[in-house]
């Protein structure tokens, strides 16, 4: 199957394919981190996670238009504003949803799953009514266009690099938040013993709301980043939900490092397979292997050992 | 050794379990004779519940051996251990809240335990009579059609004991059967336990020393996963090591 390629070409192909895998990895990380926080720390299954992402994407779309219309001079930088607004919008919606819906269902995880699915349908319809059924795209600022030639055969797209940098930045930020901030400490305390955490004066309700909000906000940032590499439609969110859940479960719920490692494994496997097989078969095989491993090792790659 | 093996109901030898390096039970050895009532005492976290978990297969041992009559329990599945004749009561009462007292007892009746056995299980006179009999023993004869959710804490404990009785295990393991009971309930339970520990071997975990003196044939004191002292109640009670770590406060 390698006949016809020279050694140099093969290296280039693998390098490019590996780079494509890295972009996919960054995308998975961005998608999965918010979910991992919500699922791992609160045990809540948020089926509307994809729709929170899409909200971020639409916010970015709106901001790019606002900049183009009113501040064309600053257009190169609109993306940073958009990202912040996407975080705020998705986070605020998340807190609202936690207050109205999720907090009533903490003891019923399966019901949460159904209710948030309902929420995702409603959000999709709202997006369709507001933004139309067609996919929308944003104009990427000039500095993000084009690619960086590494050698004369290997080129890397700048927007891909940007997404990767973003994934890295957000991972570090979450890590710091979880393990260095007061909120993170409270979240971890609640996760270990809710009653006790409440008893020592942690406002568990507020912390839950904030956690859910932050998880959704990160989804919004992920959506914002997506606009750099693809277009957005009302149902785009649903395309990712299964992959995202598998990434989180495969990584071992509750473990941020596990989520990142699992995103890496799955994305690399998928993009390498994609080179040899059709896209759909690559995906089928990747997902099958993940599901198969999960059947053998249901606790995921990096499970925490806890007494039940 | 081999002389004893058949005469003991349960032989626990060198039993060890380690949770991420922490040995909750560490090289424990003890033997239970037929019709013996063995009481296990020890401070909180000594590993008492864990020992029962290991015997009934709820927790997998790291090493050692647990022989019940002539079977090695450590390689068996929980339900197989139960069907071999080992019954277990949990520390917190666990009954089926959504089912009636009658149905709770019925599910422990020793027949129809496979998928198809339970699909074609008949509620015949034998079943009903046995349930009636047990219900009288556990003071719940008038509440047979009540949902278990409506029982008091003590009544739930009794119901769980009844579920074990109907199973008729050769070895019965009870984890703090009188904890959380009122004085009156406690007395009734002691009476009940005295009646049911006849004709079978029992391992009881209990903190209530009065109660322990009442029922124990022999006592094992556990401390940090190891046996601190073992023997008749009087001997153990006067053991200075026991007084220091457990009784002395």
């Amino acid at each position, binding site marked *: 199957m390698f006949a016809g390629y020279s050694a140099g070409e093969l290296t280039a192909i693998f390098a490019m394919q590996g780079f494509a895998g890295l972009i996919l990895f960054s995308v998975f990380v961005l998608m999965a981190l918010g979910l991992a926080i919500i699922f791992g720390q609160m045990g809540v299954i948020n089926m509307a996670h994809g729709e929170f992402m899409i909200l971020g994407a639409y916010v970015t779309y709106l901001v790019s238009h606002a900049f183009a219309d009113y501040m064309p001079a600053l257009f190169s930088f609109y993306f940073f504003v958009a990202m912040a607004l996407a975080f705020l919008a998705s986070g605020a919606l998340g807190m609202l949803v936690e207050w109205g819906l999720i907090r009533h*269902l903490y003891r019923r995880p399966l019901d949460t*799953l159904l209710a948030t699915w309902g929420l995702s349908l409603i959000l999709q319809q709202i997006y369709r009514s507001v933004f139309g059924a067609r996919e929308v795209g944003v104009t990427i600022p000039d500095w993000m266009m084009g690619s960086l030639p590494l050698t004369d055969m290997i080129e890397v797209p700048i927007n891909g690099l940007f997404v990767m940098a973003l994934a890295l930045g957000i991972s570090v930020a979450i890590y710091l938040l979880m393990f260095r901030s007061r909120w993170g400490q409270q979240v971890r305390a609640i996760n270990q013993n809710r009653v006790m955490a409440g008893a020592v004066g942690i406002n568990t309700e507020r912390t839950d709301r904030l956690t859910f909000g932050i998880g959704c906000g990160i989804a919004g940032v992920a959506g914002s980043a997506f606009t750099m590499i693809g277009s957005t439609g009302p149902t785009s969110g649903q395309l990712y939900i299964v992959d995202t859940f*598998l990434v989180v479960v495969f990584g071992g719920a509750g473990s941020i490092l596990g989520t990142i490692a699992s995103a890496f494994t799955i994305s690399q496997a998928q993009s390498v397979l994609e080179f040899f097989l059709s896209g759909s078969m690559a995906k089928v095989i990747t997902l099958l292997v993940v599901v198969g491993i999960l059947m053998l090792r*249901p606790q995921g790659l990096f499970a925490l050992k806890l007494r039940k | 050794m081999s002389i004893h093996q058949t005469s003991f109901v349960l032989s626990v030898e060198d039993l060890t379990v380690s949770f991420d390096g922490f040995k909750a039970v560490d090289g424990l050895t003890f033997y239970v004779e037929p019709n013996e009532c063995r009481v296990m005492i020890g401070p909180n976290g000594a590993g008492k519940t864990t020992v029962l978990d290991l015997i009934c297969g709820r927790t997998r041992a790291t090493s050692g051996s647990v022989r019940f009559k002539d079977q090695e329990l450590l390689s068996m599945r929980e339900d197989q251990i139960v069907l071999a004749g080992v019954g277990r009561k949990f520390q917190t009462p666990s009954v089926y809240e959504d089912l009636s007292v009658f*149905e709770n007892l*019925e599910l422990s009746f020793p027949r129809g335990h496979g998928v198809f056995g339970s*699909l074609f299980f008949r509620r015949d006179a034998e079943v009903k009579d046995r349930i009636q009999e047990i219900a009288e023993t556990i003071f719940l004869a008038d509440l047979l059609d009540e949902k278990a959710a409506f029982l008091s804490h003590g009544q739930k404990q009794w119901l769980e004991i009844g579920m074990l009785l109907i199973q008729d295990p050769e070895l019965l393991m009870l984890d703090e059967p009188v904890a959380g009971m009122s004085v009156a309930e406690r007395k009734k339970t002691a009476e009940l336990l005295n009646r049911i520990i006849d004709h079978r071997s029992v391992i009881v975990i209990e903190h209530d020393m009065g109660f322990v003196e009442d029922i124990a044939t022999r006592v094992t004191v556990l401390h940090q996963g190891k046996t601190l002292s073992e023997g008749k109640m009087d001997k153990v009670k006067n053991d200075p090591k026991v007084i220091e770590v457990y009784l002395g406060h």
Partner: protein
Amino acid sequence: MQIDRKTRFLTREEAIYFGLLAAVIFLILPLALDSFRLNLFGKYLTYAFVAIGLVLCWGAGGILSLGQGVFFGLGGYAMAMFLKLEASTPEATAIQSTPGIPDFMDWNQITALPWWWEPFNSLAFSLIAVVIVPVAFAFIIGVAMFRRRVGGVYFAIITQAIAAILTILIIGQQGFTGGVNGITDLRTLKGWDIRTDEAKEILYFVNAVLLFACLFAAQYVRRSKLGRLLIAMRDQEDRVRFSGYDVASFKIFVFCLGAAFAGIGGAMFTLQVGFMSPTLVGIVPSIEMVIFAAVGGRLSILGAVYGTLLVNWAKTTLSESFPELWLLGLGALFIAVVMFFPNGLAGLWSEQVMPRLRKLFAGRGAGARPPAAPFPANSASAPDSPAAKAAAE
């Protein structure tokens, strides 16, 4: 007071409810609807097979599968493969470059029938496959998951992933499966044209009879000790295990039973609607089937049938006239059922309607138990009870 604790197959009230449903399905719908609408209701009823299975798995056993579409699809595809082969005689497909194979294979440059299609030339094999293939698949999933004690949300997510995988696979392997369009243009069953109005009417009744067979099977299960064990497992899995039951085998059994029901439903879908496609297999149809059961009442097998009819009828009516409203309505339905009516229609009936009717006809109300909620619900408040608190100390 001597109480007779006989386990009856049907109590008197349940018999009345079964009779009522039979009247609706066998008399009222066929008399009230034209043959187009009747066929539509026949299609809805094929989803009810899935909903009944979900009541057993999810309502009783606490096992929520978000991949029931997989089993519906496997049953449906088994049937469709047989019908497609019958429709692809060498004469009927003479214009193809390879006559005698299904048209979509020919379009995808496949020149011989794949070996695994061959057995579907036999009706007997296909009918057996309708049940056996989904059951075998469920068995494999069940053994892998339940033996390792995977349950709850993990099970839900993994079954959902399986539904996604199967859909991608079917769509990707166009040449073997008909791809995204599915297997279409099905005509005759052993020479009997299934596209005529009479044929559709007959199929409606065949479907109804099969549905009642499944209802009776489900009723038998929930009346048996196995039914009570499922509830016991949902609430206190460890206690069941330490009463000497191999918990996993019971879960595998209901999961397989649900898959068998779904497979039959899928086959009847193919026969009545005339095609099978991946749109009935994936995540979205699978989770919609859960909402059918939830609306009817996750604890009631009869409720599940009514729920299925109602939601689908609403879907058809609403999406004909207000397509935007439908998705909003469906989303709201998911939320409302979970938040406000966890026991669905059956719960409303037994908790709200029946007590009022009883008051109205005071003196005549005999049975004290609400019959429409045959499985006791999860007592959510239990962990808060003072007794439990005392025990925790």
